[in-house]
């Protein structure tokens, strides 16, 4: 047998590498979101399913479109657009008109990601950019929540879902009222989220209900336990930095507590604050998005605390019942600044020679003695 000179590969150290790849990490985020998606569809039925498909489909198509334009390769392989689509859908009301959902998805990719140069270069969480856009553009539709667990939810569409583009969506309340009469559930008539109910009616519900969300009436509310559970999966696989959600929730808690103690009739109790609105989902799945958050340890803490603080301030003093979205976008905007002022102290920087061990200079150092 002839001996072949093997092709010797030249490369630089390190020669070993150990990490999940970016696509693997993103795919696992998708897995972690799946239970939430299923639960959401279970809560709201086919309207929610259709909305999800439209939103996700639009994000994927937009991602591909913009990547083609920029000449980048196989952008869908990193699954990040899929995550954007899912997160965006989960923040929309289930009866949100489909055409508006498509616009939200397009804006999320176009303004949230593509103009910055794609994944890794974006400043903001794309899903929240899309959500913020439709919040401003369609203020009525974005706040029209349908109750969860409507009896006919797997058979009929919520009327507003199928609204034609540029048309004012049909008012769903008569439809809901009819459904309510048919099934003799009068509770179901409420279409306010728990947060709106508290904000405008002073009703703060029951914590267990918020954690589980298994009863009707809790619309726009994901079960807190499920969200935490899904996030724990990512944390256990070292695919999410747990410090971010902990800092966000901690920031919200320490802001809400003194307010509540000061005047419990005007301000919500801290647990209610943590469990309502999108705070859990936002803290665990949006604020923790690596791209928009600082990487320095102290930066992460400050970023999280700012988001938690701003969320509670908006909720307590602003005109809007929900503040987490704007708080995260603000956090994203501040991230580069926060990071630049929280650079870690590097080994050996700021320390000096041990003077106790230094002799009075007798002879000068020869140049050869300076080494390395």
């Amino acid at each position, binding site marked *: 047998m002839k*001996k*072949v*000179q*093997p*092709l*010797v*590969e*030249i*490369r*630089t*150290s*390190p*020669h*070993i*590498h*150990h*990490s*999940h*790849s*970016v696509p*693997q*990490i993103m795919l696992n985020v998708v897995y972690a979101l799946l239970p939430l998606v299923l639960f959401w569809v279970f809560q709201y039925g086919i309207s929610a399913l259709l909305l999800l498909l439209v939103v996700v489909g639009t994000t994927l198509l937009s991602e591909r479109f913009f990547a083609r334009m920029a000449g980048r390769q196989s952008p869908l392989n*990193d699954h990040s657009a899929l995550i954007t689509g899912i997160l965006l859908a989960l923040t929309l009301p289930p009866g949100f008109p489909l055409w508006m959902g498509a616009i939200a998805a397009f804006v999320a990719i176009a303004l949230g990601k593509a103009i910055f140069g*794609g*994944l*890794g*270069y974006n400043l903001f969480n794309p899903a929240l950019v899309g959500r913020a856009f439709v919040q401003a553009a369609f203020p009525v539709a974005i706040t029209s929540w349908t109750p969860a667990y409507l009896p006919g939810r797997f058979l009929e569409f919520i009327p507003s879902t199928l609204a034609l583009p540029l048309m004012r969506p049909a008012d769903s309340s008569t439809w809901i009222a009819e459904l309510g009469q048919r099934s003799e559930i009068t509770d179901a008539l409420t279409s306010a989220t728990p947060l709106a109910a508290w904000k405008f009616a002073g009703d703060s519900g029951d914590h267990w209900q918020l954690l589980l969300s298994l009863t009707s009436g809790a619309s726009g509310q994901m079960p807190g336990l499920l969200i935490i559970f899904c996030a724990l999966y990512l944390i256990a696989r070292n695919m999410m*930095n747990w410090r971010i959600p902990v800092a966000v929730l901690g920031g919200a808690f320490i802001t809400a507590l003194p307010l509540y103690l000061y005047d419990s009739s005007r301000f919500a109790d801290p647990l209610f604050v943590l469990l309502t609105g999108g705070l859990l989902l936002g803290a665990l799945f949006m604020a923790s998005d*690596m*791209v*928009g*958050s600082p*990487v*320095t*340890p102290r930066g992460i803490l400050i970023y999280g605390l700012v988001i938690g603080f701003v969320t509670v301030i908006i909720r307590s003093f602003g005109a809007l019942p929900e503040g987490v979205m704007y708080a995260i976008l603000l956090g994203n905007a501040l991230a580069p600044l926060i*990071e630049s002022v929280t*650079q*870690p*102290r*590097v*080994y*050996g*920087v*700021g*320390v*000096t*020679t*041990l003077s106790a*061990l*230094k*002799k*009075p*200079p*007798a*002879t000068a*150092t020869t140049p*050869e*003695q300076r*080494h*390395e």
Partner: protein
Amino acid sequence: MFTSLWHRTFSHGVHPPEEKATTAALPIRRMPFSPRIVVPLSQHFGAAAKALVHKGQELVRGEPIAAADGFMSVPMHAPVTGIVEGVELTPSARGPKTEAIIIRSHLAASQQVMYEGDLDWQQATPEELIWQIQQSGMVGLGGAGFPSHVKLKIPAEYTVDTLVVNGCECEPYLTTDHRLMLERSDDLLLGIRIAMRISGAKRAIIGVEDNKMDAVAALRQTIGNDKTISVGVVRSKYPQGAEKLLLKVLTGREVPSGGFPFQVGVVVNNVATLALIGNLLPRRRGLIERIITIAGPGVKKPGNYLIPLGTPIRFALEHAGYFGDASRLILGGPMMGNTAASLDVPITKPVSALLVFDKAAKASEAQPISPCIYCGRCLDACPVHLNPAHLGRLAAKRQYATMANEFHLNDCFECGSCSYVCPANIPLVQYFRIAKSINRERAR
């Protein structure tokens, strides 16, 4: 595993698979002499040695064949009894050709070391001992090959009170220091005492990772009740063996950025270096052989080999049962070693291991490079607390000066931890090396 949590360590770092089990249990074995020996004149940090021999000259093993060129240089000795074939340009591990003495071995010769003398090190002055160490050709036996006598020479205005002996061997696969501590602890202790005498250190601490508790036991037994020498057990983690990190763990002192250990009263030496000093100095011998680990998926007979310096890699690999189809040869550990450009390059003084990775091992590393997703894992890995993610972004924008001036690029010692954990597979360390060399160019 949990006991290791009790042992001291530095913050951050990574835990690559150790891969030491196969060779850690294998005693040091001598490798036969290769028919051809290549001794490059520059195997160390500093000026190349000057050849003392000419073509056709007969050599006896251990005889000086090249002299040191100044203080920052070391001599070379004949690793084998044989005849000089020439002093020629030959390929080096890094690629460019360098001058080397080529020796044809007399395979029938007894290979006795004839060149030796006596040295009563306890009577010798530190200056004499430093000179003797330079004459032995000793250099740091891992990394850049820094001349040992220079390292032990403390500038006159500093006092050193502690000798830190580095027995961490934190690189995966490497087991030579481990075997050495087990098999040659007497040489090591003698070397430590010589180094203490030279540096004036009052105490010595041998830092050993807790995956080598048998070595710790062996050392403690050899030390007996000498109160000046102790063993400090540290947690197994990469890069525990980085001298400034180990020094901080063992003494609590932090070396100023850009400074040297002697500024905080410490001198650091590797166990392999000190064991050889202990072995060679009393007999005034030169450094002609070293122990290396040959391992990796591509060899059938991995082990710890005592190998003559100048042995071509090809010969060493064939002896270790090389399949002949592996595509990656690493001189040194997988985290900081270099790939060898060809099989014809020789084993030199600083080479601690020869690792052969096959294609299968390579596939898992062939992940595509994607943009940084700012996951922060590199920050959690960097033992000197740099911000590799930001440095990487600056490097992409070619802002090399900013990297050095504002983000402490020069404190990076290229340990590779950041690249190791990066999910985007960004070659961060490579960027940093390029940035440093461009900064050096510009400074000229």
